[in-house]
């Protein structure tokens, strides 16, 4: 069923009786060519591109809970490709380009909205670092520009320009950055995959892997054994748990990241901004809520909830930047489990087990990566070689000393 404005009008006039289920609920078949473990954004995108772009069939996505229930359902919805390092920037720019055509591609309005992102600058050293980054972005085909303090003020006059502890001196801006309605991304990919014959199997938890002679044969699940030619794992947050079924230890720790939304307010923040002197970033949703966040809590956790110090720290950053939000109210906080990798960058790679592939380590950058991650993982699964924008995302980069460490923090995941 194709979605369009005409269809909405036609259905409205006939009592909405014609809308069909967005996806089926199939029973698992005994075996598939491809099993994608994880029905979050990356897993669904992988299945979608595997079917659509790489013309593969007999694909299943196994999800232990509900579709889109991973970090695609609990993030701050930002898209951008303002990365510093060559290992990252081509990939994220590829992702941003996919975002730009996504809705027409999968015929679902995910509200991709490129209202611009600014990274505020407070010191000369920051300006130098952001200049390096902006130039790297442009060399990678992305857009970047440097805003003066006055230009920032024209965009957001209510920021603290006059009484700030760390004065705003300018900003690096990427106009193509923005936000996307996060749940709709999962639903759009799920619908598109389902339409192409992918079996989306909810409430199906992988409990083991059958590996014979160094080759994967299938997965044990809460709904029985399912055979597979290739298994791709995309379960960020739970990567260590799932890959332990294959006896692997990963360069990843699971940490909690809290996110925040305020009550709905009349629009006053158009784009996305990050505070350069505190841990705070914010945008305003199409419903009016301020969506914001800051640092991860900083300790290993699978609890999907955080603690008070980070909430206070984020609020302090917000108030320092925007003293006008004092009377806005925080409505809801929630926590997601982040796959924090050892250099802050992801892994999309084969494993030493034939037919077993891994996609994870997204830290808190996973949402914006969804389309490219799915595409590149599908590429790897279908062709057994990395996509050209993801060649750096290998397991062995730590052994070889080829870390992709955007923040320069070293092998300490909670600092990335």
């Amino acid at each position, binding site marked *: 069923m194709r979605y369009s404005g005409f269809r909405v009008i036609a259905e409205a006039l006939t009592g909405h009786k014609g809308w069909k289920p967005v996806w089926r609920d199939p029973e698992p078949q005994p075996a598939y060519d491809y099993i994608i473990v994880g029905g979050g954004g990356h897993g669904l995108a992988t299945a979608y591109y595997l079917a659509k772009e790489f013309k593969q069939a007999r694909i299943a996505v196994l999800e232990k809970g509900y579709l889109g229930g991973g970090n695609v359902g609990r993030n701050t919805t930002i898209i951008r490709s303002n990365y510093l390092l060559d290992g990252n920037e081509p990939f994220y720019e590829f992702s941003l380009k996919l975002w730009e055509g996504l809705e027409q591609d999968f015929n679902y309005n995910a509200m991709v909205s490129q209202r611009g992102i600014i990274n505020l600058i407070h010191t000369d050293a920051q300006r130098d670092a952001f200049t390096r980054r902006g130039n790297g972005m442009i060399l990678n085909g992305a857009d970047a520009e440097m805003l003066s303090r006055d230009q920032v003020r024209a965009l957001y006059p209510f920021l603290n320009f006059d009484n700030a502890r760390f004065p705003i001196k300018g900003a690096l801006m990427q106009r193509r950055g923005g936000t996307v309605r996060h749940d709709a991304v999962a639903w759009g990919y799920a619908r598109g995959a389902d339409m192409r014959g992918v079996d989306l199997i909810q409430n199906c938890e992988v409990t083991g892997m059958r590996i014979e002679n160094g080759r994967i044969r299938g997965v044990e699940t809460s709904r029985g054994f399912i055979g597979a030619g290739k298994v791709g794992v995309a379960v960020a947050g739970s990567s260590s748990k799932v890959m332990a079924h294959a006896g692997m*230890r*990963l*360069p990843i720790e699971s940490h909690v990241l809290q996110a925040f939304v305020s009550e709905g307010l009349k629009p006053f923040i158009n784009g996305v901004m990050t505070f350069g002197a505190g841990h705070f970033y914010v945008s305003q949703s199409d419903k009016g809520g301020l969506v914001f966040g800051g640092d991860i809590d900083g300790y*290993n956790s699978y609890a999907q909830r955080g603690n008070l110090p980070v909430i206070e720290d984020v609020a302090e950053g917000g108030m320092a930047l925007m003293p006008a939000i004092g009377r806005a109210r925080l409505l809801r906080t929630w926590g997601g489990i982040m796959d924090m990798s*050892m250099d802050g960058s992801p892994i999309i790679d084969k494993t030493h087990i034939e037919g077993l592939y891994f996609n994870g380590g997204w830290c808190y950058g996973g949402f914006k990566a969804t389309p490219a991650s799915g595409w590149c993982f599908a590429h790897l699964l279908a062709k057994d070689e990395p996509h050209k924008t993801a060649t750096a995302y290998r397991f062995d980069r730590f*052994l070889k000393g080829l870390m992709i460490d955007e923040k320069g923090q070293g*092998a300490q995941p909670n600092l990335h």
Partner: protein
Amino acid sequence: MIINHPILGPRDAQEFVYLGDANLINRPDGMTAGIEAFHDYLYNRDNPAGAHRELWYHEQGDRSWLVVTRNTLTHEILKVELARDVAKAQGRSK
């Protein structure tokens, strides 16, 4: 969170700085171990969903490094030890 410091009693975790898996105590000897051993030591993690032994530093307190055994699913803290004692018990010296 509250960490029951072995010397000072219960203290707010906000006073501490987190490092990570207490296996970081077991640093190989650089004169005998090579890149592979150090790679495994520094980069790979068990990352368990459950009891996790981890290093915390009481930066805004008495500057002790602690080994805290904490359940990563519930955040329940099961045990707190001075990291120096743990390290010595594991054979570390000079």
